């Protein structure tokens, strides 16, 4: 078995992974750093982020206001020390990307332009038209090539973390091109694998978003945190789930029901104005807007299509010029995938699974509960997003905490000695397991059948609204699927680029992640942010101003305990949007 030693491994080559790699390389040029990614880094899902990246930039704004918007947007489940670090470092990180060449949109005078975003009281969202994630990722990837100490394992798939002597020692991974299985050793490992939207049937997430890092950490004994908080973005295209960015609403788009009525006014989100009003109506937070859609559907005021109910996003009044300058990708996506022109027609949209607030539990420097293991970006839960992430906070998050994790992992790695021989045994075990799966014949289950069944269960039972009964049922069904998945057989027994083998392993990751979500959701008997329990409709600060911490017990079952939220300066308050919010802010 091949063994490749390094000091620091990045698992995942998206925005967080590349930022962390550069940060680690800058700590010490002698560190041997490697980025392992199951796709070429520029294919990573950061590429799909559209609207922008928040960071205080203008004189009328302040760090405290960004912090307050984030914390109230997260329904007070954010750790406020993390939020304070985040809002302080976000502008510097965005500026650093400017220095690396990111083509940020500009004002006429050449300074950075900012736009409004949902749940934000000030304009502070930096953007590169409506391809912000694409430009950030390509800037980071291209810049990372300057750092010659950063090696890459492109198209390698990590199957297991190696743990010995109470600390992380590396990973086992499959090289897709050849099928060889190798142990890649390191003194510190940073998980940057992103989210897990593919656990659900209808998602903005790319095919690669299968929760790998979450499952790897969980199996290695680390805590996952707040897994019940799953963000539905209010505006996805039906069928494809393609995201129509919140920037459409920030630029002045309306959400209307089947009667052409701006229905958000009926749900305590303010009064409809012709121009966008910050923290109001269409610029309310994503959890509220997605919940309003369900209520509107229950009232029979949505439209019916072949892929479920939908409402309309109306951009027609914005005009062709603004759409082409600020939202060109939205127009392109609508034309290419939906065959409609938003300049002339309304866009059909419905809520779509978009983002995981929860993830691998980390401290403010990305350190997990397992020494030497770090996590940053969507895979991690620091937590700055609490019960509901505000749009445009995830891109600066991956920069700020990617950089922090990279630096912290570098410092950690410099103090460690190389791995002991016990990890070789573990790695060999893992290799034998994968080879057995590859060689197995006579199974009776197809991967896609189990995956589709899982996705249906999650949408039905753990979607925008949940109940104790629906979650109990989901857990039982998921356990059955886990059992069925042991009878999977592969059609493909080749070593070369065996994507079916990878898909089978991804499915087992997703089933672990789905079970952890259902477990956490079942036990949280309150409603907060994106976690809405129809049987417990109120927020319960007395019992649940706390993070769900889920870990795997020795018998393989999930155990949930709680850890208090860190409050620094903003005691829990009521979440208010629309006009009353202006009063509250002034008061």
């Amino acid at each position, binding site marked *: 078995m091949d063994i490749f030693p390094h000091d620091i491994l990045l698992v995942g080559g998206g925005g967080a992974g590349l930022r962390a790699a550069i940060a680690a390389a800058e700590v010490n040029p002698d560190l041997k750093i490697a980025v392992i990614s199951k*796709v*070429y880094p*520029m*294919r*990573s*899902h950061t*590429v*799909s982020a559209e609207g922008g990246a928040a960071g205080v930039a203008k004189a009328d704004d302040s760090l405290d206001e960004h912090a307050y918007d984030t914390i109230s947007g997260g329904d007070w489940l954010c750790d406020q020390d993390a939020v304070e670090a985040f809002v302080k470092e976000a502008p*510097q990180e965005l*500026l*650093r990307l*400017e*220095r*690396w*060449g990111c*083509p*940020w*949109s*500009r*004002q*006429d*005078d*050449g*300074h*950075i332009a900012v736009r409004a975003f949902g749940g934000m009281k000030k304009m502070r969202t930096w953007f590169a038209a409506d*391809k912000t994630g*694409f*430009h950030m990722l*390509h800037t980071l990837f*291209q*810049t990372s*090539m*300057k750092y010659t100490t950063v090696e890459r394992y*492109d198209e390698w798939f990590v199957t297991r973390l190696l743990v010995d002597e109470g600390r992380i020692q590396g990973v086992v991974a499959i090289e897709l*091109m050849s099928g060889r299985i190798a142990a890649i050793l390191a003194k510190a490992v940073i998980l940057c694998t992103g989210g897990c939207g593919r656990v659900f049937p209808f998602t903005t997430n*790319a*095919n*690669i978003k299968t929760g790998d890092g979450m499952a790897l950490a969980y199996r290695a004994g680390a805590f996952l945190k707040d897994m019940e908080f799953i963000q539905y973005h209010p505006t996805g295209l039906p*069928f*494809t789930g*393609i*995201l129509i960015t919140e920037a459409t609403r920030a630029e002045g788009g309306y959400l209307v029901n089947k009667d052409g009525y701006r229905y958000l006014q009926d749900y305590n989100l303010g009064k409809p104005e012709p121009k966008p009003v910050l923290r109001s109506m269409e610029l309310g937070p994503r959890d509220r807007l997605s919940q309003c859609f369900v209520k509107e559907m229950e009232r029979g005021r949505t439209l019916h299509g072949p892929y479920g109910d939908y409402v309309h996003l109306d951009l027609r009044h914005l005009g062709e010029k603004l759409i082409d300058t600020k939202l060109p*990708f939205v127009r*392109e*996506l609508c034309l*290419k*995938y939906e065959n409609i022109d938003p300049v002339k027609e309304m866009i059909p949209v419905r809520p779509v699974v978009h983002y995981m607030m929860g993830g691998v539990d980390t401290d403010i420097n990305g350190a997990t509960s397992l020494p030497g293991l770090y996590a940053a970006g969507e895979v991690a839960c620091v937590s700055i997003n609490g019960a509901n992430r505000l749009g445009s906070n995830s891109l600066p998050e991956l920069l700020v905490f990617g950089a922090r994790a990279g630096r912290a992992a570098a410092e950690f790695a410099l103090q460690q000695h190389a791995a002991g021989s016990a990890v070789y045994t573990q790695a060999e075990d893992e290799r034998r397991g994968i080879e057995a799966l590859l060689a197995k014949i006579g199974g009776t289950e*197809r*991967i*896609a059948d189990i995956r589709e069944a899982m996705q249906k269960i999650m949408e039905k039972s753990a979607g925008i609204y949940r109940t104790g009964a629906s979650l109990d049922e989901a857990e039982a069904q998921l356990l059955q699927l886990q059992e069925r998945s042991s009878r999977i057989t*592969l*059609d*493909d027994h*080749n070593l*070369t*680029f*065996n*994507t*079916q083998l990878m*898909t089978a392993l991804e499915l087992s990751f997703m089933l672990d992640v789905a079970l952890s979500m259902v477990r956490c959701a079942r036990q949280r008997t309150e409603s907060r942010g994106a976690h809405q329990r129809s049987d417990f409709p109120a927020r319960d600060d007395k019992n649940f101003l706390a993070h769900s911490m889920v870990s795997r017990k020795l018998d393989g079952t999930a155990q949930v305990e709680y850890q208090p939220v860190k409050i620094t300066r903003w005691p829990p308050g009521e979440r208010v949007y629309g006009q009353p919010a202006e009063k509250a802010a002034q008061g």
Partner: protein
Amino acid sequence: MAETIQLEVTRYSPEKDSAPSFQKYEVPLRKDWVVLDALNYVKDKQDGSLTFRWSCRMGVCGSCGMMVNGEPKLTCATFLSKYAPGPVRVEPLRYFPIVRDLVVEMSDFMAKFRKVKPWLVRKDDKPLSEGEFLQTPEQLEVYKQYSMCINCTLCYAACPVYGLDPFFIGPAAIALAQRYNMDSRDQGSDERMDILSQHEGIWGCTFVGECTKACPKNVDPAGAIQQYKLAATMNWFKTLLAPKAPR
């Protein structure tokens, strides 16, 4: 519209086959399906060994480029119904070595990509505390289209020069170099010029413009190549006219 359509897909496993061949699959012909949806249908329901790359399904990750009826296409952005009644021939991107089925070898492209120094070169950097480099919307517009490349490599599969001369650095890499050269913040165009003019491939390009036609993101690599030739020629003239040191 017929209820099904036939796909003819390249199959090749280096472990089993001496040469690529075609395999036929019958798939539902649905109005809102793209070619990639049909491939996924095959993989999920009929033959899990069919191998291809894909990820975002929204035309921005650049993974799913293939030849569809002889033309380089992003299969996530190419509707199946366009090819009715079929059959639809799906092959790996032309001119690249085949790894397996529809997957091609990318490492040559990745090496070329890095060669052009695709990062912002500054000779006089300033601390972050001094704020951003100013850049007007007009200055942004000058290089913007070149920054839209998603590295899907459709332009290589369209490029007759690359087909004849695999050492040609190729359309996307040159467009990427030009993305930085034309960025008002960059000071590295001389270094990149040295790299690009080392190889003759660029002069082999006869401005057929196939790369620009194939680009799904409206980047104009052909234009970038012509700008490069012009700049290289100007540099060469400058060296002729420059005063020479005495021998």
